[in-house]
């Protein structure tokens, strides 16, 4: 009798956790993911320092420090829990720094970081609420605020002296000169810090895809879209750049691997991701061929970010068991 009683009445009180779904937990926490992405960017950082000189590390440090500082400052003013250590702000700062041109002024970098976190993220309510990719918001602000400095490119030459030079895309746009694919893949061309070396970007990106942080559908659909739409324009007029040039030039791969795949600002459904990636490529090809600016990865990703809620709504999967209504 007593034995059964002890079985029925446990010594410790049992509490039931009553929570809403999701009940499945991933081994990845937000901060783990963020720091992992930071780690995946290390090849790009090394490439940037190799090609543009060790001074570029200051741009990266400035961007990260100001991004984290802005996040902490706004959260403490708003009396929210300060979460600068979760790595999301540091990642935003790092991504922003890698999209800036070499030898960019440090004060402008700081402004960009403050805008990226302040206007791009915290004003919407913090991590998970922003519509647009914060790092790209910061860069778009800098592009509009300092259009001359942000398009002053430096020739990579392993030396301290820097010579201004055009990016492959600018060379195509204004002088109709095509750069070979090999230097663009290695990264020995003019361009933003992190974008020039396709190999370094791919190493980090494939690592992220392999561990499952980045969904392969977005980069793949962007590349397929580039072959489709870029190939179409190339087919119509061979004066236009080939799809391969499109993919290796500028920040296409960087955008595909690190910017468009941001969890917060990309669609959540598989079908939506395909639409998202193809849309980015279409907008990008149109900007690159017909636009006034040589490069448009930033604008095309921001543009498609705005469509994400709509894409999510229209690609909502049907609940299992629901019978489709017949059309009358």
């Amino acid at each position, binding site marked *: 009798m007593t034995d059964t009683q002890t079985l029925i009445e446990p010594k410790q009180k049992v509490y039931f956790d009553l929570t809403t779904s999701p009940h499945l937990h991933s081994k990845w926490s937000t901060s783990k993911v963020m720091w992992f992405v930071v780690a995946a960017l290390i090849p790009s950082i090394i490439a940037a320092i190799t090609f543009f000189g060790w001074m570029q590390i200051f741009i990266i440090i400035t961007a990260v420090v100001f991004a984290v500082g802005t996040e902490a400052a706004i959260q403490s003013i708003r009396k929210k829990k300060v979460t600068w250590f979760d790595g999301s702000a540091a990642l935003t700062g790092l991504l922003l720094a890698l999209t800036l041109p070499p030898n960019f002024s440090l004060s402008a970098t700081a402004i960009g970081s403050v805008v990226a976190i302040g206007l791009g993220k915290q*004003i919407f309510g913090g991590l998970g609420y922003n519509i647009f990719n914060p790092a790209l918001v910061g860069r778009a*602000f800098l592009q*509009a*605020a*300092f259009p001359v400095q942000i398009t002053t490119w430096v020739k990579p030459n392993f030396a301290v002296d820097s010579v201004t030079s055009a990016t492959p895309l600018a060379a195509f746009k204004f002088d109709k000169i095509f750069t070979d694919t090999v230097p663009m893949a290695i990264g020995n061309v003019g361009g933003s810090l992190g974008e020039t070396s396709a190999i370094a970007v791919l190493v980090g990106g494939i690592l992220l895809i392999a561990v499952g942080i980045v969904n392969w559908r977005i980069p793949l659909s962007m590349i397929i879209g580039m072959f489709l739409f870029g190939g179409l324009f190339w087919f119509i007029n061979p004066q236009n750049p080939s799809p391969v040039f499109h993919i290796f030039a500028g920040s296409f791969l960087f955008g595909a691997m690190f910017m468009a795949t941001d969890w917060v600002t990309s669609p959540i459904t598989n079908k939506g991701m395909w639409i998202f990636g193809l849309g980015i490529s279409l907008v990008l090809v149109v900007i690159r061929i017909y636009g006034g600016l040589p490069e448009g990865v930033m604008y095309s990703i921001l543009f498609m970010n705005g469509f994400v809620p709509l894409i999510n709504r229209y690609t909502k999967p049907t609940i299992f068991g629901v019978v489709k209504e017949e059309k009358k």
Partner: protein
Amino acid sequence: MKKQVTLLKEFTKGLWEINPTFKQILGTCPTLAVTVSVINGIAMALATTFVLVFSSLIISLVRKLIPNQVRIAAYIVIIASFVTIVDLVMKAQFQDLSKALGPFIPLIVVNCIILGRAEAFASKNGPLRSVLDALGNGVGFFIALVIMGGIREVLGSRTFLGYQVLPNGFEPWLIMILPAGAFIVFGLLMGFSNMYVERKKNLEREALIAQYRRVGREEITDDVLKEAGV
């Protein structure tokens, strides 16, 4: 029975409480377009205030003569007359400003602030109150444009009213004199003003609750607070 508002309140409410730009969000078109510099903002606000005050006065005087069905058309005729006066005077006396403001002076005719005050206030109130209300809204618009023009001019071209205020070392933010900068500044100012009002309201509410507690009043419901006006 409508609650009678003091004459002073009729004027001051337009400055902040129902500020046409930040609270009613009317007349945003000129707000965003002309605030590239402070002087443009001042000129625009003065022109609008002039039209606002006189059209409110006339509309309030003739409000009982206008048939209800054609009131908007009648208001537009009255407003357009004053806009024509402003436009011609500016063209004759201040050519540079007139050129800088471009089509936005003739467009005062369809400025929502003026039509809004005519429809919401002048058509229901006497001339004195209408003029005070119009003046208050005009000054509110003026304050908004000067703040916006100030921020955009200082950051976008380092100057304030044409005088350089920031050192040459400061790189001007080109975005501030572009439309994007106008939207950013406008949105931030609107957000901050709402935050300020919200905070003030909460403080008043808490003060009242504390007062009620002191007096010993037990039930402090939402209805009681609403009655007290907080």
